[in-house]
């Protein structure tokens, strides 16, 4: 395998550099067209307005707000995060990228890019969401922590699924279907953690949820790193 033989050479140049290069390439391409960013923002804001509009002026209890927030976040992620690999297929640049970088570094670069997209979405959506839902702010530090850890896990699982479906037919519908079962534990923990944050609980009270989020992200990203070579070389 060519990837094995060149691994020692790139190890000296540093995996951070190569993954960073993939990330910068994607970020610059994204900033040029803003395709994923626009699609994600318009999708998230539309969904949010639809939810808020259908509910009318009533304020919801924290469990309902937490559940709705993650439903919107999940679908906004599904609408845009598969772009990282689709773009390579559509522009026919996947083969060149395969030659230029090691699989693991491609994965890490793409993961970082998706994570940045998701965090941008969090920053845009969550304040708007809380304002429109008239939710009490509760424990903002805990909310930020749950959103950050949840986004890492979300990006970790969706990036490998995006690589899986890049060559399949009907991939738009497949992406959500494949990603959702993988994300079930994450969504359960994230919704529960967000609910606690909105209720104003301390970070210690949400320890179980935070531990679950951290371990989910670590397990998913580790497994993706191990599997990515097989997915990417297909």
């Amino acid at each position: 395998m060519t990837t094995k033989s060149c691994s020692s050479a790139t190890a000296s140049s540093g995996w951070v550099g190569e993954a960073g290069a993939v990330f910068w390439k994607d970020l610059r391409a994204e900033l040029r067209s803003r395709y994923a960013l626009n699609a994600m923002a318009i999708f998230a804001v539309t969904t949010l307005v639809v939810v808020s509009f259908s509910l009318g002026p009533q304020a919801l209890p924290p469990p309902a707000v937490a559940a709705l927030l993650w439903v919107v976040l999940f679908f906004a992620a599904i609408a845009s995060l598969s772009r990282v690999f689709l773009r390579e297929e559509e522009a026919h640049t996947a083969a060149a990228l395969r030659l230029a970088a090691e699989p693991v570094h491609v994965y890490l670069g793409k993961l970082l890019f998706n994570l940045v997209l998701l965090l941008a979405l969090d920053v845009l959506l969550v304040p708007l969401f809380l304002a429109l839902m008239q939710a009490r702010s509760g424990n903002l530090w805990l909310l930020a922590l749950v959103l950050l850890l949840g986004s890492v896990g979300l990006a970790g699982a969706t990036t490998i699924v995006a690589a899986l479906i890049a060559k399949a037919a009907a991939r738009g519908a497949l992406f959500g279907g494949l990603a959702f079962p993988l994300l079930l534990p994450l969504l359960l923990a994230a919704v529960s953690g967000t609910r606690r944050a909105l209720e104003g609980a301390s970070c210690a009270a949400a320890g179980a949820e935070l531990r679950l989020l951290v371990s989910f992200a670590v397990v998913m990203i580790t497994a993706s790193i191990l599997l990515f070579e097989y997915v990417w070389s297909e």
Partner: protein
Amino acid sequence: MPLFWKLLCGVWVAGVIVAAFLGVGPAVGFRAPEAARILFFHVPTAWLAVLGFVLSMLHGIHYLHRRQLEHDRCSAVAAELGFLFCLLATVTGAIFAHVQWGAAWNWDPRETSIVALLLIYGAYFALRSAIDDEERRAALSASYAILAVLPMLFLIFVLPRVVDSLHPSDTVQSGGMSPSYRLVFFAALFGFTLLFVWIYRLRVGVERLALRREG
């Protein structure tokens, strides 16, 4: 499968069904003691759903190692069987939940796990049907089967510790079952597993013939 095992499987499963209804008395401590007999059929189907899932993953790992299409076919067959038993487990579980807890669905951790398993199987088949190239389909679906094990581990082992469960997971291990129930229970597990192996081997034989004809 040799004739002896086929005969044994038929007689054994028939015996288990008779014993489940006539051999043991009603279970005490349940809201509907007579309905508790469903556990002799519900728990084996859930176990076979998980067995099919694990088999599918193991054949997936084999495929990624060896790149023999036979392993891919075995993986798909195991997933098909697992999906069948997963459906049965969901339905029997919902029936018993309705009788015992008053509602067919409560999002108890075990119920969440079985729904996740159903969705994973569904996604696995959707992925398979969306890829035309045979070797690519094999590699990608194998990767998905391996990846899908991880959330299941969380749902089965971590979630019940975080959320309260309605399922009596310790009853079997800690000997809360009466001896006669335990005997029929393990006999049912063995009998249905034998049935699973039988169907599995038949299906794998068919797939092998199809592979040989194609190439």
